[in-house]
Structure formats: structure tokens, C-alpha cells
């Protein structure tokens, strides 16, 4: 249990995210079948496989390098809505983190918030639109609050994980207003948002890695 996340830790985060995506590919696609086009699982799996290959091939020396690789790889291998959104997220995280080799809780929270801002700039989602925003934004609010209250990295990411999960669950009753699910109108209610569900996995992975 450490107070910073090192470059190694970032890679372990990505690895753990990838493992969760792989495990949940069918589930994510099933969620996307109900209110979308049945590809979110395979999109994310394809993207994270490409990311881990790229990251393995050319290990990065700094956080900005690493996350630039992650973001560009997602942008160029995923497509769909999630490619530009997750891609932009990581590109912005890297830009905000800068040429460092580790981040403490506050720096990490700030970098992740820059990522969220990138997602919003790209996709224009607002709270309650039933998108990944609805897991991402509360996760970062919780992390900020924990950091402000002096929580450890582990505690802050655990708070983010829990808030992401709550945010994901809260998408279920919502009527979608962004993305493909919005075409369904009222019929989109009663289903979890696939992107919010994959985002919750991202924070599960982060919390796991900081706790290790």
C-alpha cells in the first residue's frame, strides 16, 4: 500500500482493467444488445488487447507517454462511440499528468478529471444522459472529496470505485439522451448503460491496484 501510483502501477491498472473487460465481454455486449447494437464488449476487448500489446512493445518512461499510447491505441483500434471517448479520456489524463513517473492521490484525481473533461468535450454528455459520464463523474467527485478530506490513495480510489458503481446502477431507470440508446426513447429505461458499466470496471481495477 503506497501513497503514489508509479508507472508500473499504471500498467497494472491497465492490465487489471483489461482482465475485467475480457471477463465481462459477453456481459457488456448483452447490455449493449438491450439498448444499443451489441458491440460494446467486443469494442472494449479489442481496444484493451491492442493497448496491452502496444504498451508491452514500447514501455513508456513517463505517465504522459504511457497514456498517450493508451489513448491513441484506443482511438485507432476501437471505433464506435467508446473509441473516441475512452481514447480522449486517456489522452487527456496523460496530458494532465505530464512527464512524471508517479502520481499521488491528488495528482491522479486531477488527471482523471481532465480525462472526464475530454469525454465531455467530445461527447457533450450531461449528468443523467445515461452514459459513461454517469459513472465517471460521480467517481471523480468522490475521489476529490476523499482527497480533500485527507484520504489515502487506496481510500480515495476505493471511494471512486464505489461511486462509479453507484453511478452505473443509477443509469438503470434513466431514459437515454445521448448515444444509440437515445433512439429507443422510453424503451431505454430499465437497463444499465454499457459504457457506465465498463467505466465502473475501470475504477474497480484502479482500486484493486492501489490496494495491492
Amino acid at each position, binding site marked *: 500500500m503506497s501513497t503514489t501510483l508509479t508507472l508500473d502501477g499504471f500498467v497494472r491498472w491497465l492490465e487489471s482493467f483489461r482482465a475485467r473487460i475480457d471477463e465481462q465481454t459477453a456481459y457488456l*455486449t*448483452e447490455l449493449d*444488445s*438491450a*439498448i*444499443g*447494437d*451489441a*458491440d460494446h*464488449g*467486443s*469494442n472494449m476487448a*479489442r481496444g484493451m488487447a491492442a493497448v496491452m500489446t502496444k504498451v508491452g512493445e514500447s514501455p513508456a518512461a513517463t505517465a504522459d507517454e504511457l497514456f498517450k499510447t493508451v489513448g491513441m491505441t484506443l*482511438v*485507432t*483500434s*476501437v*471505433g*464506435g*462511440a*467508446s*473509441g*473516441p*471517448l475512452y481514447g480522449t479520456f486517456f489522452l487527456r489524463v496523460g496530458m494532465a499528468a505530464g512527464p512524471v513517473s508517479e502520481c499521488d492521490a491528488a495528482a491522479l484525481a486531477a488527471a482523471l478529471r481532465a480525462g472526464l473533461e475530454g469525454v465531455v468535450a*467530445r*461527447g457533450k454528455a450531461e449528468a443523467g444522459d445515461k452514459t459513461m459520464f454517469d459513472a465517471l463523474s460521480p467517481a471523480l467527485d468522490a475521489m476529490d472529496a476523499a482527497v480533500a478530506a485527507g484520504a489515502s490513495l487506496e481510500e480515495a480510489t476505493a471511494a471512486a470505485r464505489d461511486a462509479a458503481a453507484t453511478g452505473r446502477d443509477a443509469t438503470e431507470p434513466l*431514459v437515454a*439522451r*445521448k*448515444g*444509440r440508446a*437515445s*433512439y*429507443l*426513447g422510453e*424503451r431505454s429505461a430499465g437497463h444499465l448503460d454499457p459504457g457506465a458499466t465498463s467505466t465502473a470496471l475501470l475504477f474497480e481495477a484502479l482500486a484493486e491496484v492501489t490496494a495491492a
Partner: protein
Amino acid sequence: MKKLINAPEAVLADALKGIEAAHADLRVDHAGRVIYRATPKDQGTVALVSGGGSGHEPLHGGFVGFGMLDAACAGEVFTSPTPDQMQAATKEVDRGAGVLHIVKNYTGDVMNFEMAAELAAMEASVDVKTIVVNDDVAVQDSLYTAGRRGVGLTVLLEKIVGAAAEQGRSLDDLVALSEKVNGEGRSMGMALTSCTVPAAGKPTFDLPDDQMEIGVGIHGEPGRHRVPLADAHHIAEQLVEPILADLDFGSSPTIVMLNGMGGTPLIELYLMYGEVAAILQKHGVTIARNLVGNYITSLDMAGCSVTVLRADDELLSLWDAPVETAGLRWGR
């Protein structure tokens, strides 16, 4: 899942091999997943690039060729292609007069094409303009949706604007023409069955034998409403009426497409076209040209869509202009 494929993850790569083998007048960049004309068009003419998820064949690769597109970027099944694909295609086909991106209105497609245009602009070399097609009357274009989907009208637009590009019109002209087409056309679709996305391995949704989905797009998504199965005549009414309610076609000539979703045989498409044409005529709509067949599909989904485009003399003459692609061919 029963499909003529080798493996779900190889569908796109393998299909591109077949397209290349079948069409000597197409060139396929397999790594980049772009379909080009084997012979580029003349210097000084605007090039057209489109693309989108796969599973809609012949759209878009089948519309690459004289009189239509210069390049089509193929994404994974139902997944928009990535910005690097569009950027590469854009640079490759530019003949110095700019490139028009034809994008169907889906969040993913729009964002990926946007990033591609940003990248192309950063390289400062190619003048890129974009038309986003959004013709699906099943969806309201409101704050509460991602706007109307781009569906059948895309085919008609690629034909008409492609013909104009071949005549040497400017990029701005083509943008204006595209906007005109997009403003004058509307579509509505329905499904008898779901399709099966190869990577998902099972139908996207279940539909009881006595039900159908009205207001579907082209991604196997459920429609706006699930309603009792009806006969062809009443299905045609449910497709035509929302279109006529959305746009007054007056007595101007129209181009009408009765499009199959991929799993519906031609005999049923002709039968549906007969019903649609009769209903349109009853409402005073004049059909000047038509297209019946599988042009923008949703894998193996059974169902169909109707597109109606109000077409003045300009659009009709561009429609009639020669075209030579895998999916549409006349006049040469």
C-alpha cells in the same frame, strides 16, 4: 449462430479479401481497411469519402467507383471506423480540390469523423467538409436524442453527390447539394427479426412470432415500438405515413427506395414496393425513380425500410447520370 464465416473476429478482414477478389476496379488497403477505386479520379475534382461500421453491405464499399465514392472506410461490424482510417483515405483520395466526408448520424461515426477532420486539418493539407445524413423519421431530432439516425437516404445521397463530383463541381457546391438532399429525404424502417452480430453470437433481441419492430435503424437495435405483426399492406402504411407526416412532398417528383435489411428475399421486397408505391400514389406522391433491393442492410435482419426523396430536375438528372459501382450500375 449460423453464418458463412471463419471466425467472428475475422469477418471484416475476410470479407475485404472477397471484395478485392470480386472487383478488379477496386483496390483494398487491408491493413488500413479502406476500399478505393483502382483508378483514382481526375486531378482537380472533389473526392468523396464515406465509411461506417460493417454489416450494411453493399454500403459503403459497394458504392465506391465511378459516379459515387472515392473511398470507403470499413469499421468492425456495426462499429464506426477509426479516425486514422478516414484520415488516410482522405489524404489518399484528395485530388487537390478537397474531400467531402459523408457521415451517417451516429454518435460514434460523428465523433470519429470529427477527429479525422481535425487530424487532416492539423496537417493543413486537405480541405475537408462533412455532411451528416440524418433522415430517419423514427427518431425525433431533439435535445433528448442523439438526433435522427442516418439510414437509407445515404445511398441516394452518395449517388447524387457522387454524380455531381464527377462533373467537377466545387466542394462548397457539393456541401450545398448534400444539404439539399439531406433536407428533402426521409426514411423509416421495420424488422421482422433481429440480426445476429457475429461477435455477440446470438440475436441482438428476441422478437415473438406475432410481433414486429417498427422504427428500427440499421444496427440490429430494437425499434421505437414493438407492435403486432401485420400484413404487407399495413406494414407499408406504418412506414409511409410517418414519412409523409414529417415532410410534405407535394406533387414534386420523388425517388423512392424500398430497401431490404439483408435477410429478406427479393420477392418480398418487390411485394412491399408494390404496397408502398400504391400508398404513396394514393397520397398524391409522384414516383419518378425507384430502387428495390438490398442497399443498406443490417446483417441478416429480416425487414425493410422506405426512403422517399423529393427530387427536382437537378436531382433527377444527377440520379440518372452514369454510375459504375458494385452496388449500383447504369449508363456504362
